[in-house]
């Protein structure tokens, strides 16, 4: 644990230095920061968009914006919340933009059935277990999907998600609750009633 804490402190210090360098236009610092955080950004974008090419483009865009708007970033604060915010915002916009521009009819059928346009070649490469999990994730409304990804995949707290998405904690809780129920149902897991929420297993008298 001490090693992990030491690593995190070291990473934070280095991020601080790298941001200062980026503010002066240092491209090497940008490359180093990219190496350090690329997985976080790429995987979050991929989980939200369900499109490998889009996730790659969005990752590039996130770091380009980091470079461009480095002056606005406070080096004393952790960079990860900024990266999460930028990634989710861009991914959110990308999904919404794609919805407004329907493509081939096959994509449209996918879109109607799953709520998102899936990249067929990408989905074909996934193994069955992950495809099932990913179908469950893709079936969620976008707002719930974003919260589920940040909470389950990135281990962020409700408070952190609330700050990243700039919505109240109660809204995050609600989206997570309904997202969780939908995921469990999709995966055939037992849906247990939670305190303070209506029992969704109750089918009436």
């Amino acid at each position, binding site marked *: 644990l001490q090693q992990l804490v030491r690593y995190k402190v070291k990473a934070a210090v280095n991020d601080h230095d790298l941001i200062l360098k980026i503010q002066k236009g240092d*491209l090497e610092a940008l490359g180093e920061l990219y190496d350090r955080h690329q997985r976080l950004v790429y995987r979050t974008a991929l989980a939200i968009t369900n499109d490998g090419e889009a996730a790659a483009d969005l990752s590039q865009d996130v770091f380009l914006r980091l470079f461009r708007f480095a002056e606005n970033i406070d080096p004393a604060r952790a960079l990860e919340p900024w990266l999460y915010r930028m990634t989710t915002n861009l991914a959110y916009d990308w999904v919404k933009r794609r919805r407004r521009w329907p493509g081939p009819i096959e994509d449209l059928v996918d879109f109607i059935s799953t709520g998102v346009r899936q990249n067929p070649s990408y989905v074909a490469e996934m193994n069955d277990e992950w495809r099932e999990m990913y179908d469950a994730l893709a079936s969620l409304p976008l707002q719930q999907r974003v919260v589920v990804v940040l909470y389950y995949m990135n281990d962020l707290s409700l408070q952190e998600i609330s700050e990243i998405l700039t919505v109240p904690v109660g809204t995050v809780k609600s989206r997570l609750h309904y997202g969780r129920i939908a995921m*469990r149902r999709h995966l055939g897991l037992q849906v247990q009633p939670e305190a303070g929420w209506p029992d969704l297993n109750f089918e009436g008298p």
Partner: protein
Amino acid sequence: MDNLSDIYISQCLKNWAASEQPPNNIRSRLLLKAASASLHDESFASPDASFAYPSYRQSAGSLFPIPTGGSFYQPLLWVLHLNLTPIKNIA
């Protein structure tokens, strides 16, 4: 995460995420674009830039540069001043 199904969902998502690697070419594309952008936009990488959004400097090539400050000696303010001042007062 309070029960087994939560842990299952979390673990599956993390396993899936761990198996996904970003393409190798993003880094070089990123650095190329950043270098190109900083070459073509002088507001990039300037240590004295006070804000990062596209600055007034980009308007320098336009026909009528947009005044950037509130100085009394700016031409547009002088034109306004002359138009609003009665001639008899000037004389």
